[in-house]
């Protein structure tokens, strides 16, 4: 398969400047087909700017970008035919009902068979849980209901690419859960490119992640690779008892590269054992420690970073994301 066919979004040196300020600097982003791509970064990092450039709502200052191999400047309409978009703060015509909004949206894509379109609208309303509010004016909708309607209108056209800007931002935990479920359901059919500030959601559903800071891409990798970190393989053990002798014994093995013991003050300690050979560690590490009858192991596992940890270490001083 050609490289272009496997990438849905491909940007090269994409740059956007507003009044001399670089909102986006030479962004090289590659979004694989059928991925759920999490796009992270602190406030003002350039996430929404990137999305607007991809949709033709803004023009790049320099560089280029393509979606489905189509140029975002020259073939914007062609791209938008195949994309569904949910804005960060979605706004619709207030005089319309949810059903009318979806009908209006659908007519940008489809003509003919009214019955088929109405059926699609009903399906979509059902999917986002708005069937009972379908004929109510959206003027009275809550933030969560607007967000659900946003997801509904974004996927009314069976898009090949869903672009969601903070899709779960204004939802309660149940609403967030529903949105993530919808995203997971849609991944079979479409590529989802979404920005969010809820890192646990990204860790749950994304398979690839990019992190943007001050308009620059600082990381882009499959989520597993990102969570593995760059410290090599580390195993952690929670141990009760004095482990000084064991530390020396472990260090004598060639596959152990370092042992770091952090006492917790209650006679227990957290051991971090860095290893060069993962298989040897899995086979021998726990057995070796348990040979010492003075030690009790209460927990054992491979160290996993969480996304927040990775994000904070990369973004540095930034305290909030969004």
């Amino acid at each position, binding site marked *: 398969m050609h490289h272009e066919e496997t990438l849905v979004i491909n940007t090269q040196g994409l740059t956007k400047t507003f009044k001399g300020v670089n909102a986006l600097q030479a962004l090289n982003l590659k979004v694989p087909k059928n991925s759920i791509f999490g796009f992270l970064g602190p406030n003002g990092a350039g996430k929404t700017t990137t999305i*607007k450039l991809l949709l033709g709502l803004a023009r790049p200052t320099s560089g280029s970008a393509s979606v489905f191999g189509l140029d975002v400047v020259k073939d914007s309409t062609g791209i*938008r035919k195949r994309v569904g978009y949910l804005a960060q703060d979605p706004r619709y015509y207030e*005089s319309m009902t949810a059903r009318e909004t979806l009908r209006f949206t659908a007519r940008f*894509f489809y*003509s003919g068979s009214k019955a088929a379109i109405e059926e699609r609208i009903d399906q979509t309303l059902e999917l986002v849980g708005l069937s009972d509010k379908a004929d109510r004016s959206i003027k009275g909708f809550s933030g969560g209901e607007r967000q659900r309607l946003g997801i509904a209108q974004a996927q009314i056209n069976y898009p090949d690419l869903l672009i969601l800007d903070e899709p779960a931002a204004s939802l309660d935990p149940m609403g967030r859960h529903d949105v993530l479920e919808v995203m997971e359901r849609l991944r079979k*059919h479409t590529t989802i490119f979404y920005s969010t500030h809820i890192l646990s959601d990204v860790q749950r559903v994304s398979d690839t992640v990019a992190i943007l800071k001050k308009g620059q891409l600082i990381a882009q990798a499959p989520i597993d690779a990102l969570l593995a970190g760059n410290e090599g393989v580390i195993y952690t053990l929670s141990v009760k008892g004095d482990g000084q002798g064991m530390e020396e014994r472990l260090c004598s093995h060639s596959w152990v590269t370092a042992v770091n013991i952090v006492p917790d003050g209650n006679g227990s300690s957290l051991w971090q054992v860095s290893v060069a050979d993962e298989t040897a560690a899995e086979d021998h590490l726990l057995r070796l420690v348990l040979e010492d009858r003075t030690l009790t192991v209460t927990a054992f596992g491979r160290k996993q970073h969480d996304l927040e940890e990775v994000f904070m270490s990369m973004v540095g001083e930034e305290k909030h994301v969004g």
Partner: protein
Amino acid sequence: MSANATFQPVNERGWRRGFANLLRYENSTWWRTRRWWINSLIWLVIINGTLLAMLASSAEVTEALQQTPEQVMEQARTVFVVMAGIFGTVGVIIAMQGTIIDEKKSGTAAWILSKPASRTAFILAKLVANVAALFVVLLVLQGTVAYLQLTAYSGSPPPLMPFVFGMGLLGLHMLFYLALTLVLGTLFQDRGPVIGIPIGILFSAMFLMGYMGQFAYLMPWMIIPSGGVQGLAIEVMLEQPLSTTTPIVATVVWIVIFTGVALWRFAREEF
């Protein structure tokens, strides 16, 4: 996705992409809401109400000033053209002031343009729908009621075609301000200049016409009575020879320029 195989895709291309859908929506904002009859009622009271008041009091005035019924009819048509020309135009400006600005500020324009709709279609749908609605509410309805009033007063209808052509010139006058308000909506981010500039241009004619010299011919001011000028619309209604056609040609040119600039500017708008 395969599931969309049962649907027939929209086949509009180029600038027309999304036009039919947007036009349907824009029309619905007039005809599926109270907007059309509220506007009709307000401007009927202001424009035709004034004409009615004038005709109702004309018997006393005619006697006092020793006017002929023909002179009263001429005055009635002048009053109608002034009221429709000024207040009808104010109606156009008020109706159009938020058309673009509100959508830019609220985010609905960005929402629409994230769909496969062209920016030209977005502007033209607003132009076409508002021209049609405002012409019905401010020209056809007001003109018809005024014509019936004049007929009822004099006992015989005034010449129809001159009246229609005079209304046509009033329509051209309104179209100038409609296109101007539209282009200002694409150029500014606030309502202030969008309503202030057209109102300023409309009323400046009353006070500054005498100082404008030849420039006055390049504006739509001479179409309606203002600043001591009888007004081309009145000349047409009274079947008099046109004193000049330059303002008519200039107004058409302005309308084309405003529409062109609105399309050009909106195509470069960033959201």
